[in-house]
C-alpha cells in the first residue's frame, strides 16, 4: 500500500493552507478502527486524483492544535481545503463513491 504523506501542526500552513492545489486532509488516529478502514480509500483517492489534488493524513494525537482549530470532535474526518479554506468536511468512514462525488462536485 502506498503511504500517504503526513501533515503536522508545524507544516499545515505551508502544505495545506498555502497549497496551489486543493488539499484533502484525513484527520485520524491509531486508536480509531474506522480510520483504519478509510485509509485504503484515501490512498486510492490520492492515486486517482494525482496532479489535481494533494492528499495528507493528520494524526490528531500528535497534532492537537490543528485538530482543535478545525473543531475535529469525530474521526475519521476528511476535510477538503481550497485556497486556504474548508470546502467540505466528511465525517465518518464512507464508501469511496461518497468521497468521489463530493470531490467531483467541488474540484
Amino acid at each position: 500500500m502506498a503511504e500517504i504523506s503526513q501533515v503536522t501542526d508545524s507544516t499545515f500552513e505551508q502544505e495545506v493552507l498555502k497549497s496551489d492545489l486543493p488539499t484533502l486532509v484525513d484527520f485520524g488516529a491509531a486508536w480509531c478502527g474506522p480510520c483504519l478502514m478509510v485509509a485504503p480509500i484515501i490512498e486510492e483517492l490520492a492515486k486517482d486524483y494525482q496532479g489535481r489534488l494533494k492528499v495528507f493524513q493528520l494524526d490528531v494525537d500528535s497534532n492537537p492544535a490543528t485538530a482543535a482549530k478545525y473543531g475535529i470532535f469525530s474521526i475519521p474526518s476528511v476535510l477538503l481545503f481550497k485556497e486556504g479554506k474548508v470546502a467540505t468536511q466528511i465525517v465518518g468512514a464512507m464508501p469511496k463513491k461518497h468521497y468521489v462525488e463530493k470531490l467531483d462536485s467541488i474540484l
Partner: protein
Amino acid sequence: MTAGLYAARSRIDTLLLEKLTPGGQVMTTAMVENYPGFEEPISGPDLMARMEKQARHFDLKIEIQQVERISRERDLKKVVTDEQQYLARAVIVATGAEPKSLGIPGEKELRGRGVSYCATCDGPFFQEKEVAVIGGGDSAVEEAIYLTRFAKRVRIIHRRDRLRAAKLVQERALSNEKVEILWDTVPIRIDGEQLVQSMDVKNVKTGQETKLDVSGVFFYVGLKPNSNFFDLHIETDEEGFLRTDDNMRTSVDGIYAVGDVRSKMLRQIVTAAGEGAAAAFAVEKYLENLTS
C-alpha cells in the same frame, strides 16, 4: 469474513466484497472480551485484522467495492457494485447493520461536533468533559464505561427503568462512580453553536424536562440493517432485517444472510462467525445439488 473463510477452505470459487476495509462494526469496538479463545480482551481492529489474515491464508479473494444492487439473472444472481458486476450461483449477505439515529433536533447538525456514534473513535476528544450516552443495551453501557477513561462524568440516558445490557456489564456501570444513569428518560434536543453545549431530556413518566450541560452525546439506540440493495422480493422482519431458516437461507433460493443483517435476537461477533460457517456449508450443499 467467516463465511468467506469457510467457503475458501471448501475450495468454492469465492469473492468477498467489502465496501470499506473488512471489519464492519467490530472496528468501532475498543475491547472484545467475549470472543472465545482470547482470554485477554482483544481490540476490535486487532481481532478483525487476524480474521482477515486467517481468511487470506486460504486464498480468499477480497475486493473493496460497495454492493449497490442484487437481482436475478436467469438462474444466477447478479451483484452490481460501484465498479463492476458479477454473476454468482450463490450470495451470502453479511452486510451488517449500522447505528440508528434518533432524528432529534441537533443530532444531524452537530454530528462530528459532539454528536458521535463511535465512542472508541471520539472518546479521547472529551477529556475531563461531561458526556451523555443514549441507550441501555450492551453497546450503550459498555461504551459508557469506556468513556469514563476520558470524561469527567458519563450520563446514560435510558428510556426504560432497567438496562438491557448483560448483567456483568450492568454491574460494572452501576459500580463506576463516573457513571450516572437517568432512568425513564429520553433526549429531545441537542443544542450548541459550533459544538454541542447542552441537551434537553424528558422524563417519560413525570413529563419533566431538564437541560443537561454536556459536550458530547453518543448514540447507541439500536441498529438498522444494511439491506436496501435488493431488486427482488426477499422476506424481512418489520425493521428490514433478513429472515432466514436455521441454515441461513433467505426466502430467495441461493441467497443466504448472516450476522447483524439477519433477523435474530443476539448480535455478537461469535454469532456472526457461527452463522458465516453455517451459511458457507449450506452454500456448498446447494452448489453440489445444482451440479448433480
